[in-house]
C-alpha cells in the first residue's frame, strides 16, 4: 500500500498485481494527466500520451474519472480557449474589433503572463480574476440593457467545449459517480467527507486532490495515474493510500523528500 510506481516500472508492477485475485482491470485518471494531453510543449506530454495508449489501453485497462477531474479538465480548457481567443484580438493582423479598453487590458495582461512564461515557464492561461476584469470591459451601455459578453463567450466557447467533451468520451474515459445506482459496483466503500479530510490532513493536500485520492480508496481499483507532485507526496506520506503511478520525472523528483520509495 502507498507505493509510488514510475511509468518505466509499470510493466513489472502490472504483471505482479494483475494476477492478484482482488485486482480489477481499471484505473482512475487524475486531472493533471488529462491536462497534460493539452500541451504539446510540456516535457511530459508525449510520455503520458504514449504511456496511456501503450500500457493502459494496450493492457485493456479501463480509465475512469470522477466529478472533480472532469470538471477541472473542462474548466482549464475553457480558460485556455478564452485566453487564446482574447489574445488573438491584440494581434496586429486581427480583424476582431474589440473596444480599446478591452484590448488595452488584454495587452497588459498578456505582457505580464509572457514575462512569467519566459522567466518561470508558467503557462499563459488567464486567471479567473483576470478573465472577470476583461469581462467587465465588455459591459453594454447603461441604457442598452444588452449583454455583449455572454454572446461573445457563446461564440468563443459554445461549439468548441462540446467537441472537446465528445472527444473525451470517445477516448473511452468513463465518468463514474458513487451516487449513480448503475455504478455502485465500482465502489466498495461509501465516500464520506471525513475520509477526504483525513487524507488532506495527512500531508496538507488540497481538498480537491484529497477527493480524488478518496475516490481511489473507496473504489475497487488498485492504482491511480497522476502527474501531480502533491498527490505523489501525499501517497508517500500516508501508508494507507493505494498505489499511484507517475511519470518518471515526477518519480525522480520525489526522491528529494527522502521517503522510502
Amino acid at each position, binding site marked *: 500500500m502507498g507505493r509510488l510506481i514510475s511509468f518505466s516500472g509499470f510493466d513489472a508492477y502490472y504483471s505482479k498485481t494483475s494476477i492478484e485475485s482482488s485486482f480489477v482491470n481499471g484505473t482512475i485518471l487524475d486531472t493533471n494527466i488529462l491536462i497534460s494531453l493539452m500541451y504539446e510543449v510540456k516535457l511530459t506530454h508525449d510520455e503520458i500520451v504514449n504511456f496511456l495508449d501503450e500500457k493502459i*489501453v494496450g493492457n485493456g485497462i479501463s480509465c475512469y474519472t470522477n466529478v472533480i477531474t472532469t470538471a477541472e479538465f473542462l474548466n482549464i480548457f475553457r480558460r485556455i480557449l478564452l485566453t487564446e481567443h482574447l489574445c488573438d484580438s491584440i494581434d496586429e493582423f486581427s480583424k*476582431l474589433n474589440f473596444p480599446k479598453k478591452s484590448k488595452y487590458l488584454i495587452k497588459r495582461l498578456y505582457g505580464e503572463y509572457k514575462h512569467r512564461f519566459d522567466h518561470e515557464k508558467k503557462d499563459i492561461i488567464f486567471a479567473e480574476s483576470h478573465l472577470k476584469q476583461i469581462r467587465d470591459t465588455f459591459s453594454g451601455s447603461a441604457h442598452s440593457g444588452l449583454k455583449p459578453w455572454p*454572446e461573445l463567450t457563446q461564440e468563443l466557447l459554445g461549439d468548441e467545449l462540446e467537441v472537446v467533451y465528445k472527444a473525451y468520451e470517445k477516448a473511452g474515459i468513463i465518468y463514474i459517480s458513487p451516487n449513480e445506482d448503475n455504478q455502485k459496483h465500482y465502489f466498495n466503500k461509501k465516500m464520506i467527507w471525513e475520509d477526504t479530510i483525513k487524507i488532506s490532513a495527512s500531508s496538507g493536500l488540497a481538498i480537491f486532490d484529497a477527493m480524488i485520492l478518496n475516490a481511489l480508496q473507496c473504489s475497487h481499483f488498485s492504482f491511480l495515474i497522476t502527474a501531480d507532485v502533491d498527490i505523489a507526496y501525499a501517497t508517500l506520506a500516508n501508508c494507507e493510500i493505494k498505489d499511484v503511478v507517475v511519470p518518471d520525472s515526477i518519480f525522480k523528483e520525489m526522491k528529494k523528500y527522502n521517503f522510502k520509495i
Partner: protein
Amino acid sequence: MSEIKKKTPFRDLANTLKSVRQKPLSKKQIEKINSIIKRDIEEDTEEVVPIKKIAISKKEEQSLQ
C-alpha cells in the same frame, strides 16, 4: 496479411485538443462578434473619421440646404 492498427485513443484525444486550440475564428464568427460589440458598446471601436472628411461632409450638408 494486413497489419492490425493499434488503438491510440489518447493520441487521438490529444490531436483533437490541439486542433480545437489551433482553429481560428471563422470570418462569420468575427463579423458576428464585431457586430455585437458595435451594437452594444458605445465606445471607441468605430473607425476614426478624419477631420478633413467631416469638413467635406459638412460642406455637402450646407450645399444641400
